[in-house]
């Protein structure tokens, strides 16, 4: 669906993304790596929010590869590359339904219509309602987005990205900050959207990554150090060295326990 060729982004002397050759197929691929590995930078490059220093990005538009290196965010979105954000980034004072509806309206020519009431464009409402149903927010349709709980806002993040029938979904930590009870819901949503979209997922929760991914790409200091299926990633010593900070082989489970302990400490620390 989308591929990069020696993609590089430098900020001054720091190489945030270095020579990344990557191709996303019609599958659920997870992008993992320690903090600062360049995951979000990679997303920003793919969507055109950042301009690469070197290298190219191509997108498969109905079987034909086109160069999208110089496209900006609204152009990549129009092509069908949508993203969700690590930090919730919605339209706060309008309703949940309108958040998704305005995203659905972005596709097609209707947005320049200024003389007809928006209610006349039924299909955007129909699409938005179907998406809200999918991300389990239908009963919150009339609530202002700012009044949602944090977990619901994460669901809405994915909902906005789904609108307009994208080909590629880039999900940037859809679980960020979600309580342990809420995580299952978001995980179900991720698995569901992966059935009909190519998904690139950034995720810190190893349970989810191991569980849902068809393939895992590991970034470290801007470079791809491993690209394989979950089982092989689990046993890859380079990954453990880089990502887990020198844990013994086979100790991913220990790392998982560690993150869970962190989480329970955080939960117990009075964070509601």
């Amino acid at each position, binding site marked *: 669906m989308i591929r990069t060729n020696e993609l590089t982004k430098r900020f001054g002397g720091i190489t945030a993304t270095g020579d990344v050759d990557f191709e996303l197929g019609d599958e659920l691929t997870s992008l993992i790596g320690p903090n600062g590995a360049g995951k979000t930078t990679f997303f920003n490059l793919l*969507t055109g929010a950042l301009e690469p220093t070197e290298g190219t990005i191509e997108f498969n538009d109905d079987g034909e590869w086109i160069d999208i290196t110089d496209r900006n965010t*609204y152009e990549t979105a129009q092509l069908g590359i949508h993203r969700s954000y690590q930090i919730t980034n919605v339209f706060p004072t*309008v309703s949940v339904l309108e958040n998704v*509806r305005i995203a659905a309206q972005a596709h097609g020519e209707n947005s320049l219509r*200024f003389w007809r009431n928006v209610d006349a464009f039924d299909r955007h409402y129909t699409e938005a309602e179907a998406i809200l149903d999918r991300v389990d927010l239908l009963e919150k349709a009339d609530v202002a987005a700012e009044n949602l709980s944090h977990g619901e806002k994460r669901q809405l993040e994915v909902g906005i990205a789904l609108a307009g029938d994208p080909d590629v979904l880039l999900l940037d930590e859809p679980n960020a900050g979600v309580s342990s009870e809420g995580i299952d819901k978001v995980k179900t949503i991720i698995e569901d959207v992966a059935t009909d979209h190519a998904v690139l997922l950034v995720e810190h929760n190893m349970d989810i990554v191991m569980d849902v991914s068809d393939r895992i790409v590991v970034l470290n200091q801007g470079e791809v150090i491993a690209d394989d299926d979950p089982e092989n990633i689990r046993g890859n010593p380079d990954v453990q060295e880089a990502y887990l900070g020198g844990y013994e082989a086979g100790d991913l489970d220990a790392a998982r326990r560690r993150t869970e302990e962190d989480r329970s400490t955080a939960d117990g620390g009075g964070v509601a």
Partner: protein
Amino acid sequence: MSSEKTTRGPAWLGQYLRDHILLIAIVAIFVAYPFLYGFLTNQFGIVAAMILPETRTMLTILALGLFAMSFDFVSGYTGYLSFGHAAFFGIGAYFVVMGFNGQIPLVPAELPFMLLLVLGGLVAAVAAFLIGLISFRLSGVYFAMITLGISEVLYVISNNWDYITPGSSDPSDGVAAGAPSDVGFFEPVLGIPFVDPLNAKVGPFGDETLLGFDFGDPEIVSYFLIGAAVLLCYLAMKRIIHSPFGKVMIAIRENEERARAIGYNTFRYKMGAFMISAFFGAIAGGLLVAYVGTIDPQNSFFFLVTGFALVAAIIGGLGTLAGPFFGYIFLEGVREFLAREGSGGGLQPFLEQTLPGGVLNINLGGLTINEALDAFMTGHGEFYAGIIFVLFVLYIPIGLLGTLRQRLGTDSVAKYVSRRVADRFGSSGSQPAE
């Protein structure tokens, strides 16, 4: 969606009237106002004159209220504060005057007023496009400063460029339509083109009859026609706000980065909104000229003209469209009431005329009451308006209409009223759209 058959008229008409009860009621109040003013001042004399603005004052309020709405159209809905919005008001006003005087290249002198009005609006839209090319590269306070800077440049030009005033008078004193000796009188005809009964001459010496009614006062005819033009502009802006385009404007205000990320070329929409608001801002300027016939820099390009629109928008509620209009009426009402401005009524003349002479001459530590009234009230309207503005920002930051919406728990007071009326009088079947 109702298909009920009535013998009294088409169903959509009934539905339309039901959905717009509040609008119709407010328009009815405005239509009745000149007569109410006459009646009340006859009945209650100076008490009514103290509270109510004169019809002539209402004329300028209508035009400047429209300007405040056009300011809100871009500032309240896209979130880009158009701090130099006075530029468009000035362009509209000066275009009508200078166009009529034949001073604008390619525009023959003495064109019909309606044509000048619309052309002025289009010129303002083009100006907005050029300003937008520069200023939309920036956001927040920088956008506001660029637009303000450009309008100040126009202010300085309008103050100093001799070309504006044919003959020898100082451009800073303003310019009158029909001033050069080789142009005729400025007799602006406002109305629907080619429909004669719906046209009349506006101005202090304009027509006294409209639709066959003789109102005996050109002020009232002007008030109706300018009011109708303002209403039309309001409905047009409201229609745009409720369109798909308008929803994109709101999305930009809410979160421009995300609006881009979901596929909107936000520059295009911001520019469109800016041009539309400039168009209506210029119409407001032209309508003011229609009545007064002259324009000067202080009342057009000066930054306080934007300032008052901003204050009116905040008092009425930013992003509510109708709010700034009522905010402007409120603001002017306060200024008129608390301080003698021009010839209007207000508290001071009321006190001067009703308090016995003995009371007025009581000495309060070196000042008689009469002198105190003069010192604190004459010409200090802005001072009191300023205090009220500060109170609004502190305690009612979402403005009058914003607060009303919040209290009623609705995003449209008009729909709320329609629903309540329908509930109470058991209107058959058809529900207003949510």
